[in-house]
């Protein structure tokens, strides 16, 4: 049985809410990569500070969106079931701990911050998964996509922060490939979910195609930069590899931001009313309806 479509696009979360998922994803990914750098004995304070900045900026954007910003503290009241409360609690530990790691140049604190950042990103993925009104967010394949996108964005920004030696290019390439796989799985999942059909349409629009092209171009740029870094003979100028790494980093981040903006603000259709059966109007017999009132 077909019926007219009744699903509406959600009207409450705009680019400010999308900004929380953008800042949270990029920031968490960056913090994780910074901690890996810390363990590897590389400089990590700048990317770690930048990652914390992204997370804080995302949370500030969402604070600007809520209807009662001066009651924001109430967000902490429901840890038992609300992933939004859990996200808030993790953030309140992550930000001071990360700041302490930066201030004290502490590798253990950076590692702890990375664990919290991974938890923060997990909470964000679960926030979307728990939104039962929106089929495109309910899709099981969205969880790995959000996690892989965060890592891809974070490692992309890490390349911009100046580190584009082979290990970091390899890590970024791995993250981009993981995001690619997660994206394809998510698209396939949407295609198999009738309730999410309209979201699939959004991912076929020109802005989505642009984000997708940027995603693939970023992947190609990082792969080429890695190829240059691995194969270049000693004494070869580094500039081409550096430019490719920067381009790849920018595209890795921007394409993820574009997809998330579309996912939150455009592909978010609330479940349609679905009638499993159609009544024959006027067939209600005596006694099945009628006056409900004892006295009028």
């Amino acid at each position, binding site marked *: 049985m077909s019926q007219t479509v009744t699903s509406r696009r959600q009207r409450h979360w705009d680019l400010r809410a999308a900004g929380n998922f953008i800042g949270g994803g990029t920031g968490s990914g960056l913090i994780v990569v910074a901690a890996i750098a810390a363990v590897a004995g590389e400089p990590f304070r700048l990317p770690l500070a930048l990652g914390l900045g992204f997370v804080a900026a995302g949370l500030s954007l969402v604070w600007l969106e809520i209807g009662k910003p001066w009651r924001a503290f109430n967000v902490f009241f429901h840890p038992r079931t609300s992933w*939004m409360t859990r996200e808030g609690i993790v953030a309140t530990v992550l930000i001071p701990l990360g700041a302490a790691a930066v201030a004290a140049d502490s590798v253990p604190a950076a590692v702890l911050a990375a664990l919290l950042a991974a938890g923060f990103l997990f909470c964000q993925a679960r926030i979307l998964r728990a939104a039962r009104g929106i089929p495109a967010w309910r899709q099981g394949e969205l969880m790995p996509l959000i996690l892989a996108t965060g890592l891809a964005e974070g490692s992309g920004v890490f390349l911009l922060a100046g580190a584009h030696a082979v290990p970091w290019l390899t890590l970024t390439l791995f993250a981009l490939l993981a995001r690619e796989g997660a994206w394809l799985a998510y698209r396939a999942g949407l295609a198999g979910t009738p309730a999410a059909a309209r979201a699939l349409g959004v991912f076929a629009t020109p802005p989505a195609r642009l984000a997708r092209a940027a995603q693939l171009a970023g992947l190609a740029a990082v792969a080429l930069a890695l190829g240059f870094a691995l194969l270049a003979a000693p004494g070869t100028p580094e500039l081409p590899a550096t430019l490719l790494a920067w381009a790849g980093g920018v595209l890795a981040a921007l394409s993820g931001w574009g997809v998330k903006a579309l996912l939150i603000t455009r592909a978010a259709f609330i479940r349609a009313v679905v009638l499993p059966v159609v009544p024959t109007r006027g067939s209600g017999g005596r006694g*099945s309806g009628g006056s409900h*009132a004892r006295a009028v």
Partner: protein
Amino acid sequence: MTRYVMVADLRRCVGCQTCTAACKEGNGTPPGVQWRRVLDLETGTYPNVNRVFVPVGCQHCANPPCMEVCPSTATGQRADGIVTIDYELCIGCSYCAMACPYDARSMVDHAEYAFGEQPTAVEATRIGRERIGVATKCTFCAGRIDAGTARGLVPGQDPEATPLCVNSCISGALRFGDIEDKDGPIATLLAENQWFRMHESEGTEPGFYYIWDKGTL
């Protein structure tokens, strides 16, 4: 235990929207916000098409996803099954609106009036400033139920203890009452007719039943 539910007889509803108007008038909801809506759907494929009118709104789910996600605990549930919003706790994050599979929640962030900048005389008496910047939805007219039951009246049978939409329904399509009253009119109505609930697969256990006897699959 009491569990209040609503029943919409889809065979009887003529899509007149009287319930929508009664709810708006009684609850003073602002322009663009309808706690009770009646959808006008076309189903089937030409030439075998049907038109069906479907009253919708908060389904007062037994397992409400809106309550599960709410970070502030503003969304709660009473012992009689009515899902509530505490306007003093709500932070206006709208997460509940994303979690509701029934598109039942609204939020406005500034006062709006039907005719321009100033409220009409009626609007001035009805506007609820506490409802700006927070989530709102159908309350099953909980205030009427509480006031009525305190006087010994029976919701669904005595109009003064019954939701306004049900009182106003011109065709008797909307019914209300305690489904746990095994010999009561709601339990009898559901026992005698075929019904479905929307999005059962979500496990929300909605408190809104749609009767469709002798229809088509």
